[in-house]
C-alpha cells in the first residue's frame, strides 16, 4: 500500500509545573542557582576506584549515604540512589502526588532516559565471580542493570500506575523523554508524565570515552579554542509535564521539541551538523518560530562535536543569539544531560541569566557565534537546549514562559 504523505502534525506546548535536578553543580534548584550565579563548577579530579588515570569528573556528593525505601530495596544501586536524591528535592514528589490525585495514578506516566542504568552493579558483580565464573547470588540484573529498572523504580516510588518507558538514545535520552511525553499526552494515553533522565558514573562509560581519546585532562572547557575533551558527570533531572490548560497559568512550558537522525556515522557527528540543524529547526518551528534569547549548547568539549554544533548554530542564528555550554559546571551527564539542561534552561528563564562557559578564556573564533564566557543578565524568555548523541541521534527543546 501507499501512504499519502500528509504533513506531520505539530505537537502542542506542554506545561512544566514542577522540575528539579541533582548534579555535581548542586542538589536541588537553590544550590544550582547559587552555583550558576556564583560561577562555581562541580568538576574535580576523579577519586573513584578503577577509573582511567588523570581525569576529572562531575561526581554527586553523598550518593553513598542515600537509602532507598525498604520496600524498594531490591532496586538499590548508584543510579537509583541518584534518582531518589533527585526526587526528594523542590517539592517534586508533592507535585506528582497532586497530579496523580487529580488525574488518577493510572493516568500519570513515567518516561525516563538513561544510557547505562545500573550497569555499575554488573561491573562490581563481574569482579566478584566465583571459581566457575558465575555471578554472585545477590546480583539482581532486572532491578539494577536493566534499562527498565529506572522508570520502574520511579513509578513505584511515586505510587504511579501509568505506562513506564525507558528511553536509551545515548546522550539525547533525557531530552527525548519530553518528546515521548508529548506524543503520549496527545494520543490520550495519559494526562501527565514524569520525564527526565538519570545516569551515573560507571567504569564502562569512563573507559569507553577514554578508549575514544575524548576525555579532558582537567575540567572540560566547551567552546574554548584550546578545548581538549569531555569531563563525564552524573545527574538526575526530572520534570512533570501536562497539558497547558491543566496547569497553573504562567507555568514554565516546553514550547517545542524536535528530533532527527544524522544517518552518517555511529560516533562522529555529521561534519556540517545537518542533523543538528534539522532537530533545532523542528523544535523552533514547533515553538512557532518565536525568537530564542539563549542557546544552551550540547557543548561537550570535544574538538569535533563543538565545532559541528558551532557551525549548526551559526547557520541558524549567525552571531545574533548568545550561547554557551553549562557542562563546565556539571560535566557531560550523558543520558541525563538533556533533562538536567532543561532544568538549567528553566532557571535561566526565571532568573534572566545567560551563564557564560566556565573556564574559557578564548572561545573558538571558528564557530562564528556569540559564545558567552561570562554571565550576562538579560531577559530570557525562551531557551533552545541541544542534545546530540552516538548513533547520530539529535534532539532540541525550546523551554520558556508559557
Amino acid at each position, binding site marked *: 500500500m501507499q501512504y499519502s504523505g500528509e504533513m506531520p502534525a505539530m505537537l502542542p506546548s506542554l506545561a512544566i509545573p514542577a522540575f528539579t535536578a541533582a548534579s555535581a553543580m548542586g542538589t536541588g534548584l537553590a544550590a544550582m542557582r547559587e552555583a550558576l550565579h556564583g560561577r562555581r563548577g562541580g568538576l574535580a579530579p576523579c577519586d573513584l576506584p578503577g577509573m582511567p588515570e588523570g581525569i576529572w569528573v562531575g561526581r554527586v556528593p553523598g550518593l553513598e549515604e542515600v537509602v532507598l525505601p525498604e520496600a524498594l530495596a531490591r532496586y538499590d544501586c548508584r543510579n537509583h540512589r541518584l534518582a531518589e536524591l533527585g526526587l526528594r528535592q523542590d517539592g517534586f514528589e508533592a507535585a506528582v502526588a497532586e497530579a496523580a490525585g487529580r488525574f488518577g495514578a493510572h493516568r500519570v506516566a513515567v518516561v525516563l532516559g538513561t544510557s547505562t542504568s545500573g550497569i555499575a552493579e554488573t561491573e562490581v558483580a563481574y569482579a566478584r565471580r566465583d571459581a566457575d565464573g558465575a555471578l554472585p547470588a545477590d546480583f539482581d540484573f532486572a532491578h539494577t542493570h536493566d534499562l527498565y529498572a529506572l522508570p520502574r523504580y520511579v513509578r513505584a516510588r511515586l505510587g504511579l500506575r501509568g505506562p513506564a518507558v525507558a528511553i536509551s538514545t545515548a546522550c539525547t535520552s533525557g531530552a527525548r523523554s519530553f518528546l515521548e511525553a508529548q506524543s503520549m499526552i496527545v494520543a490520550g494515553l495519559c494526562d501527565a508524565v514524569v520525564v527526565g533522565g538519570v545516569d551515573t558514573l560507571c567504569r564502562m562509560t569512563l*573507559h569507553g*570515552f577514554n578508549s575514544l581519546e575524548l576525555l579532558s585532562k582537567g575540567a572540560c572547557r566547551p567552546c574554548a579554542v584550546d578545548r581538549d575533551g569531555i569531563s563525564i558527570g552524573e545527574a538526575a533531572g526530572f520534570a512533570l509535564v501536562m497539558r497547558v490548560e491543566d496547569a497553573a497559568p504562567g507555568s514554565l512550558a516546553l514550547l517545542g521539541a524536535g528530533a532527527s537522525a544524522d544517518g552518517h556515522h555511529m560516533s562522529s557527528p555529521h561534519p556540517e551538523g545537518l542533523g543538528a540543524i534539522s532537530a533545532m529547526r523542528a523544535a523552533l518551528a514547533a515553538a512557532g518560530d518565536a525568537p530564542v534569547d539563549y542557546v544552551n549548547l550540547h557543548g561537550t568539549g570535544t574538538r569535533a562535536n563543538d565545532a559541528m554544533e558551532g557551525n549548526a548554530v551559526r547557520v541558524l542564528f549567525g552571531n545574533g543569539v548568545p550561547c554557551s555550554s553549562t557542562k563546565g559546571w556539571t560535566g557531560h551527564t550523558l543520558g541525563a544531560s538533556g533533562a538536567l539542561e532543561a532544568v538549567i534552561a528553566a532557571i535561566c528563564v526565571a532568573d534572566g541569566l545567560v551563564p557564560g562557559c566556565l573556564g574559557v578564556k578564548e572561545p573558538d573564533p571558528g564557530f562564528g557565534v556569540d559564545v558567552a564566557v561570562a554571565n550576562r543578565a538579560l531577559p530570557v524568555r525562551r531557551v533552545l537546549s541541544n542534545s546530540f548523541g552516538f548513533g547520530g541521534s539529535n534532539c532540541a527543546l525550546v523551554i520558556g514562559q508559557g
Partner: protein
Amino acid sequence: MRCGIAGVGVLGPGLPGWEASRAVLAGEAPWEPGPVVLPPPAALPATERRRTSAAVRLALVVAAEAAAASGLAPDALETVFASSNGDGAVIGSILEALSTPGGAISPTQFHNSVHNAAAGYWGIAAGSHCASVSLGGHDDSFAIGLVQAVAAVVSRRVPVLFCAYDAPLTPPLDARRLTDAVFATALVLVPSDAGVVLSVEMAERAEASSAGDLAPLMAGNPAARALPLLQALAAGAAAQVGLPLVDGGAVVLGVEPC
C-alpha cells in the same frame, strides 16, 4: 489508538521472514525451529557492515523487510526500536575487558554498546534523517515499544517503522537474564485505516494471549512477546491480544482485517 499496518517483517528460529512464515504463524504448517541466518546488512557501506554485530543484523533484517513490504521509502519513516537486552554480546565483551588489568576497552565496541546502535546503523543504511527513538523495557519491551510507536503515528500523523529485537546475552550474564534464541519483528505503522487496522489500548488487566505451539519461543525471548499479534495477522481474522505488563496493567491489541 488506531493505525494501519502497512508492512511486516519477522525473523527467528523456524521463521525465515514474513511471507515464508505465514503458514507456520497461521497454524497451517508445523513450526520447525532451526538455526537463524543473520546476513550482513547489504545497504551499509563495507566499513560499517563489518562492525555490525548479530543483534544489529537481526534488527536491520526485519526492519528492511517491513519497510520494503510497506512500499514506503525507508528514509521517510520515523523509527522506534525496542529491545530488552540491546547488544548483549557487545556489553558482555566490554564487561570482560573491564575485568582485566587496566580495563582498556575497544572504541568500536564502546560506540556499538549504546542501546540505539541498531537505530544508528538503520539510519546510515537507509540514509534517513527522520527522528528515531530506542527503548528498553525488559519483558515489556515489545508491548511498550508498540505503544510508543502507535502514539507517534496517532499524535504526529507520520508513518513509523517499529522494530522489536532481542538476542541472547553472553555468559555469565545469560544466567541472570535468560534469552534462548534470537527473535525480531518489525511493523510499518501508518496513520490511516488502509490495510490491516491495529488498535492499541492500555488496560487495568488482561488475560495473557498464548502463542500456541510457538509458546517456547515466546517464553524465551522478550521480543517474541509479539508472536500472538503476528499469529493473528497471519491468520487474517479479527482478534484481540492481551499483553500483561511486569508491574501490573496491560496492553490490549486489536486486529481488524479490512
